[in-house]
């Protein structure tokens, strides 16, 4: 089976979807001629023509808004916002229109669109190129929010997202584009070619939205993570020797409560890990859900390891980023509680 980077897997997903369905169109800033700032759309314009893969001006609001109109008439736009940090101008169209058209029209109109955006830090991008805004989407009813952590899932989830009949926010952890990253920034990058999940089948397949997966089975403590934090948590488990069960959520909304509950009831402990800031982060939701559903099985408080409640710093990136040390310390604390 071919090994692919996450960039190639994402490109492949759009390629496959465009081949299967003429309604799929791909556009965004630098997406057509240039092939995308992270190269995710390279070659698509040449293959499918500039009416199906094209450049948009730097107009995020316009990009998402026109995609809503296209989708309401039955197209399946898959648009790229160059960095998740640039989506704020488009937020109004995402929240007030994309997420709400189905409800407002009592189901007459639907918005089958995907907004792809690279998310997260680890590249010294400072505050305007490093944020993890997933909670700004999970808080909005009418949206689905997906965060893949590897090439195999990225392709399957993106095809599923494009085929989904509701608007999907597809957050791509940019630090994972070229290889799994466990937070040890001083070590060389492992390429996807050397990771099992870099194996990506040719052609069409889907990974269903709303289904989590256990990445590392364990008995001591459940770790709920997604994106880059899956690898950070794996490193923390290995380095502390704690037999953590690591769950990769893959889709944040709709979340896979069954998988979460089954694991926490088994381990009796739970740590939630994300890169985004702590307060009102998605970890707060997960923590509340675990408390509501597993209270009588818990042997320790549910703990969160997250980015700090500060803007994303430039120079002090690695003091902000929740790396394996921070996760490991919390794993130990939860085991000792």
């Amino acid at each position: 089976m071919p090994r692919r980077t996450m960039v190639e897997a994402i490109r492949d997903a759009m390629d496959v979807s465009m081949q299967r369905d003429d309604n799929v169109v791909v556009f965004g800033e630098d997406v057509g001629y240039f092939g995308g700032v992270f190269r995710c759309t390279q070659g698509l314009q040449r293959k499918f023509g500039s009416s199906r893969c094209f450049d948009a001006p730097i107009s995020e609001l316009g990009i998402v808004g026109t995609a809503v109109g296209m989708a309401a008439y039955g197209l399946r736009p898959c648009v790229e916002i160059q960095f998740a940090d640039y989506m704020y101008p488009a937020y109004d169209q995402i929240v007030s229109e994309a997420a709400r058209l189905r409800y407002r029209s009592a189901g007459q109109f639907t918005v089958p669109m995907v907004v792809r955006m690279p998310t997260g830090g680890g590249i010294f991008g400072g505050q305007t190129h490093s944020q993890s805004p997933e909670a700004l989407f999970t808080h909005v009813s009418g949206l689905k929010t997906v965060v893949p952590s590897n090439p195999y899932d990225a392709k399957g989830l993106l095809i599923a997202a494009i085929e989904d009949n509701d608007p999907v926010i597809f957050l791509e952890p940019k630090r994972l584009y070229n290889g799994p990253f466990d937070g040890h920034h001083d070590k060389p990058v492992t390429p996807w070619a050397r990771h099992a999940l870099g194996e990506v089948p040719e052609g069409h397949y889907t990974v269903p939205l709303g289904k989590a997966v256990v990445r590392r089975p364990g008995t001591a403590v459940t770790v709920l993570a997604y994106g880059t934090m899956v690898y950070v948590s794996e490193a923390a488990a290995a380095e502390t020797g704690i037999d953590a069960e690591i769950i990769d959520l893959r889709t944040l909304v709709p979340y896979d409560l069954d998988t979460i509950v089954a694991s926490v009831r088994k381990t009796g402990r739970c740590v939630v890990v994300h890169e985004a800031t702590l307060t009102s982060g998605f970890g707060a939701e997960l923590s509340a859900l675990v408390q509501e559903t597993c209270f009588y099985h818990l042997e320790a408080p549910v703990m969160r390891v997250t980015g700090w409640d500060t803007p994303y710093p430039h120079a002090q990136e690695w003091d902000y980023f929740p790396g394996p040390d921070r996760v490991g310390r919390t794993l130990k604390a939860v085991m000792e509680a």
Partner: protein
Amino acid sequence: MAKAAAAKSKPSVSAESPRTGDNSVTPEQLRQFYRDMLLIRRFEERAGQLYGMGLIGGFCHLYIGQEAVVVGMQSTIDSSKDAVLTSYRDHGHMLACGMDPRGVMAELTGRSGGYSRGKGGSMHMFSKERNFYGGHGIVGAQVPIGTGLAFARKYRGENSVSLTYFGDGSANQGQVYEAMNMAALWKLPVVYIIENNKYGMGTSVERASAVVDLYKHGQSFGIPGEQVDGMDVIAVKAAGERAVEHGRAGKGPYVLEMLTYRYRGHSMSDPGKYRSKEEVEKMRGERDPIERLKKRMTETKAIDEARLKALDAEVRRIVADAAEFATTSPEPDPKELWTDVLVESKPAQAA
């Protein structure tokens, strides 16, 4: 208003026929322009080297090729009161504003001696003292802010203006036009300087703008616009003076489209496949703002070899000193992670 706009909206100086010679510029001013442009060029070259050595991380957008725009414009304002702000391609603007090259370079390297003490990096720097309001990483975001700065100046009854720079790509952001309408409606003293370097990242103006004459983009709000040879510092100065005077006279906003060119990639990792090497070489060879000025000065005997050498040496010394400072200034104090979030510093969350 609308009539005036229509009358003024044809380019008074076109890129194809640059204005030559201008009696209003003294030899001393020319030498100053030359020095200031050279400082930016050499500073940026050094920044590129430091990036290559891994001493600057993340993004770094060099201004090489565009020096005449900011140097010419700065000569038309009073830097003790007029505001300047721009995008992430901001190093040249800061040097032109008289900010300390040491502090700028040290922010690039993320050190405590940087203007934002390592919090901002290359794209996000400010100097209240020099009236520089940033360094903005979000494309177009500075445009309404620059408009608000003009409002505040007018409100206070100060006769000062706001120079609000943005790129050709940024000219497609919706908020640019919301701001322009307000500026025209409220007659705000803001000069919108569109640095048209032909590309926004890897996308040419033709691929992104329905109307490629960007000086016309204020027309529907009745804002006069001019297209200027942005590779000619004297042409920039002349147009800048008209625009700034317009603002000071209470006549409202003005658009200047500067035809310019960036020689380097968009940021440091740019495959450069969207334009030909020949195009870059042609611009560099035929239109370079520094070489052009040098030629003009030598021809008119505004400068001799010895003075050129002395300026060159001075600039090199400043840049070497800035680089030395930026690579020896200490890393930010760990406590800095928690400061400047709100007025009251947050208690540290870290154990």
